[in-house]
């Protein structure tokens, strides 16, 4: 059996005037997490819907768990779990009834379906709410129930379409824990997200999609290297000390980089930025700056934002940039 559990080539899908997928290739290795990163409208959801057999592409080939998605969708459906962007639990059913229904549709006996439902509800901390209608659940509880519903059949491949959108940070980390556990139990997870941080925390590999096209496929570290990784940014109280601050910060710069004065368009001048290898740099930078007698009004460590990822990835490909402007 192939090592790739998801494989897609040249997927195209057009909705009216929008080219939602414009030749997307994807590859996910068995037992890993693939993060599909992109802004709203990039085509992430469309790609997931094609792979989960909900949507036929206009062109292209896709295979999940070694099975052709277009030719044998029913066989694919026995091996996948899907949690959509909007929690699709049935609000008038209780937590248990929601999961038992899925179990019955997966041909479990009523007894096995009930057992599996109880097991999942307990695992997702929903046992106490098991007998309540889902409409009484909080947003986080609904998300958990929705995720539980996609796990009823022990799927080989799990598709999570923006599973943490709208969750508070603590709930988000709970969800990450769930995803990691699934992978340790042998599942492969394809997850879409708008958060670089989330992809970084979970994914073994990241695919960046923009306007229906894959613009990068790399490991999180590889991607960060291309984007610039962590940045330490300081603002001296006295703007004339900027050159001194640059000299001090060169000492904590990541290998092969230098501190620079912020000159980006729109940025307020007078700040100094330096790419750093990790947050230890902060511990070294602060005493060094104090020793040099440089007073600061602002100091911070920044991850590259999604904007910066796109900026970095689309930089130097003027054709892509020009096409982007036309759309």
């Amino acid at each position, binding site marked *: 059996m192939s090592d790739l559990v998801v494989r897609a080539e040249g997927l195209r899908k057009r909705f009216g005037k929008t080219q939602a997928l414009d030749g997307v290739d994807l590859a996910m290795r068995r037992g890993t997490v693939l993060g599909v990163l992109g802004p709203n409208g990039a085509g992430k959801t469309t790609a997931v819907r094609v792979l*989960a*057999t*909900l949507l036929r592409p206009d062109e292209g080939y896709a295979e999940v768990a070694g099975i052709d998605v277009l030719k044998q969708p*029913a*066989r694919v*459906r*026995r*091996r*996948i*779990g*899907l949690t*959509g962007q*909007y929690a*699709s*639990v*049935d609000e*008038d*059913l209780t937590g248990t*009834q929601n999961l038992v*229904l*899925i*179990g*019955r*549709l*997966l*041909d*479990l006996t009523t007894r*096995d379906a009930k057992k*599996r439902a109880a*097991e*999942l509800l*307990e*695992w*997702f*901390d929903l046992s106490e709410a098991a007998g309540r*209608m889902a409409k009484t659940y909080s947003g986080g509880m609904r998300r958990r129930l929705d995720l539980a*519903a*996609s796990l*009823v*059949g*022990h799927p080989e491949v799990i598709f999570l379409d923006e599973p943490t959108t709208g969750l508070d940070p603590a709930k988000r980390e*709970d969800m990450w*824990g*769930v995803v990691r*556990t699934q992978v340790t*139990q*042998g599942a492969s997870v394809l997850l879409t997200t708008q958060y670089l941080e989330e992809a970084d925390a979970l994914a073994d590999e990241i695919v960046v999609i923009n306007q229906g096209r894959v613009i990068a496929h790399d490991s999180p570290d590889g991607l960060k290297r291309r984007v610039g990784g962590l940045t330490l940014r300081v603002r001296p109280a006295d703007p004339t000390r900027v050159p001194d601050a640059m000299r001090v910060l060169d000492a904590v710069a990541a290998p092969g980089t230098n501190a620079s004065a912020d000159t980006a368009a729109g940025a307020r001048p007078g700040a100094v930025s330096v790419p750093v290898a990790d947050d230890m740099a902060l511990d070294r930078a602060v005493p060094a700056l104090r020793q040099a007698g440089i007073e600061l009004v602002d100091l911070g460590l920044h991850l590259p934002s999604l904007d910066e990822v796109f900026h970095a990835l689309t930089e130097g490909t003027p054709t892509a940039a020009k096409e982007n402007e036309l759309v």
Partner: protein
Amino acid sequence: MTTLDVPTRGFSGDIDRPRGGALAALMRHSMALARRSLIKTLRTPEALIDVTIQPVIFLLLFTFLFGGAIAGGDRGAYLQFLLPGLLAQSLALGGIALGQNLNADIEKGVFDRFRSLPVARSAPLVGAVAADVVRYLTVCVFMLGFGTLLGFRVETGFVPTVAAVALSIGFGLCFCWISVWVGMLVRTPGAVQGVMFLLIFPLSFGSNVFVQTNTLPGWLQAFVHVNPITPLVSTIRGLLLGGPVAHNLTITLAWMAGLLIVFVPLALRAYARRA
């Protein structure tokens, strides 16, 4: 969160082969989904107004407000004539809610989950239609029960009454596929109702529900004779009040088959295209 036991696959044997073949699987899945619809119906009894209070209001309205004028003062005789007809109209109207509910379900994304499961594409629709049996039975019970209070009397017997109820439910199950189809096509639940009213009111008023056909002008009589509601009403009248039913029953069953042959594929195709 606690850790979960190492998963054992919930399926035994070949996971690509549903137990008992495709048709058995369709039945099983449809029943599981029908159960879902029934739970929802029981949780929201107010959703049954259109098959309980609404038909009763029509019955009161036509018996006491218009009945005297239409039937020349004999309200009792008019009630006997009207009730089987209103039953047919209520069955047709009773199917509207189904299309509305399915339309809402699709908008909410509930069906995406079902479509990502290894169940037949038609199972969610078949299940929802099957659960509507309860609504059509409710219509029959309310109409006959309340009608009896007002003075309606079955002039045949128990078996023909059961046959009338069975035919009514059967017709409701066939007619509602139009509503299902419309529910797949339009954008909002409100639009389902609008379209279905446009269809049902000409059918129920342009029939033998409220008046004797021979009082109508010729062109309207022609419409009444090709209207599927007319043979249905004649059959129910025959079964409840006596008289020959064979001819009208045959035509009604043919219409029911025709409704299924046309609207089930249309609804399934529209469902597959939606979302």
